[in-house]
């Protein structure tokens, strides 16, 4: 491999990593605080992409469309939580898996009903299209660089909120021991609703940024959902720091695995990595539950 290829693949890997982090952040906190397995998190990712594509078409303003799409994703998350998931906090994981699987089927078909089966076109504005030379001999798409920057900024912001604010402290307390946090006066249900809505918006953000790179179509959320599950299992459930490190690890490993190894092995690298890490630490790298 040439140095140019190394730099390019590293950028790709980190970019996939921050995208996975946006997906995993909400998922790991939702799981950490309410012990809820939400397979429908991938639907929020998909919804983000569809909303952004449609709002761009309607408003003609890219940034306005982004804001609207984020709000719409958060709203969808709130509706999902309030109407269905709220009833399932105390239920078994089996019930949670079934009900969120049911939600996936419903959301997928409703999306198909509204937008049709053909991928929805989602153009990027002209100032973000084209590429720049990040080093001699390596042109890199501006949009991908923007995704990278937004992802890292959001990750930094999230880290500051979770690690250095009062709300963040409540969130961490809820994730490590919900009952104890509640006994100490933290309004856990309220915190949880906020976390769920924020997690939905982050998943929507990941989706709308992935939209122009991949394709905006039904079922785009599920492969990412499973990668995000790998991330939170490797990082340790309930830990934002674990999710960030694991997301970068998985993103880079997946990208390089596909370039360096034969295809049969390359597609399996991250799962083998997961198995190895779990064989070593069954509760992930940084579990929030002691």
């Amino acid at each position, binding site marked *: 491999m040439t140095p140019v290829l190394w730099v390019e693949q590293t950028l790709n890997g980190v970019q996939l990593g921050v995208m996975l982090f946006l997906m995993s952040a909400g998922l790991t906190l939702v799981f950490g605080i309410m012990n809820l*397995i939400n*397979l429908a998190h991938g639907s929020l990712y998909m919804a983000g992409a569809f909303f952004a594509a449609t709002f761009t078409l309607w408003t003609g303003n890219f940034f306005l469309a982004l804001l609207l799409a984020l709000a719409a994703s958060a709203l969808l998350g709130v509706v999902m939580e309030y109407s269905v998931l709220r009833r399932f906090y105390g239920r078994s994981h089996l019930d949670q898996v079934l*009900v969120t699987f049911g939600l996936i089927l419903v959301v997928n*078909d409703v999306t198909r009903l509204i937008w049709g089966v053909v991928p929805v076109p989602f153009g990027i504005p002209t100032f973000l299209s084209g590429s720049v030379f990040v080093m001699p001999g390596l042109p890199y798409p501006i949009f991908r660089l923007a995704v990278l920057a937004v992802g890292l900024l959001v990750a930094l912001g999230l880290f500051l909120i979770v690690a250095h604010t009062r709300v963040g402290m409540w969130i961490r307390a809820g994730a490590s021991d919900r009952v104890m946090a509640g006994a100490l006066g933290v309004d856990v249900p309220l915190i949880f609703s906020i976390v769920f809505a924020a997690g939905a918006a982050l998943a929507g953000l990941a989706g709308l940024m992935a939209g122009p790179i991949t394709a905006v179509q039904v079922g785009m959320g599920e492969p990412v959902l499973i990668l995000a599950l*790998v991330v939170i*299992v490797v990082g340790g459930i309930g830990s934002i720091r674990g999710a960030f490190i694991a997301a970068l690890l998985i993103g880079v490993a997946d990208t390089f695995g596909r370039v360096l190894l034969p295809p049969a092995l390359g597609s399996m690298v991250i799962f083998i990595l*997961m198995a190895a890490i*779990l064989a070593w630490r069954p509760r992930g790298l940084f579990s929030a539950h002691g």
Partner: protein
Amino acid sequence: MDKFVRSWLAELKSYAAIFALVAVLACVPIVAQLLDNPFLIRLLTRAVLLGMAAVGLNFILGFGGLLSLMHASLFGIGAYVVAILAWHDFNMEPVLGFSGTSNVLIALPVALLCVGLAAMTTGVIALRTMGAYFIMITLAFNQMLYYFSISLQTYGGGDGLQILSTLTFNHFVITSRAQFYWLCVAVLGTVLIVMHKIIKSRFGMILQACAQNERRVKALGFAPLPYKLVAFVISGLIAGLAGALWAVGQGFVSPADLSWMRSADLVVIAVLGGTGRVYGPVLGAIVFVVLESVLSGLTPYWQLPLGLIVIGIVVFLKGGLADLFVGRRHA
């Protein structure tokens, strides 16, 4: 002596539901003949094989308390091994030094061996963890095997693999859909009886105890892991057996058979039929397959009502359909 006969009769009675179910299933080809509706046999073959896979899944789900989302991949391994061996036989290319085979009686044990090895390796890692971790890890393993099946370019990659040679059972060739269906029902019946026996055995008792309270099981001096691992492998083998028969019946395998959505379907089937009984998933599979066929005939958006039904089941029907037929087990 009288006591012996009575206990024997009592045991026979505990099989009554299984015998009745198999007898009803065995009559389907005759009904299909009378109604002049051969589609019924295809539909029920699908139900019997999906049901068999779900019975395997339910062995660890309903009795071991372990929710696995990788059973579609084990099902798929069984199917792929049969198809790959037939491919090598058809193309006269040796595989790992052996010639391929279209003899199902040889391919089946090989398929089960592969499924068993896959279940054992993944099981050792997955079972070290608990609860939600187990669910997510099995889901990840399912996806890993799914991508692996797509990467098999020689064997059709994402398009799947058609079985071009004629599959035989030694020298016997299955000629009609009904014959194959009866074979599947017979295998299903055997699986149900064996499962029933295992669950009533000492091994089955310990497995169920692990699901209820692992700490107490340890306190009684049993190590839970070996029991759970053996149960996981048995459960995978049954799914793999269903998959191998699936390949024989369809003459075609594809990565879609390994998708994680299919794994979730199997969980839905098991819960729909009732996880508390060995034969519950078979009832679930029949309802699921009929539902799928009716809904997809009505509308291309059939997953929407299916999803709503799944949500409805979780909210309202806790013991599955078996409860509707036989009444609650834990009164």
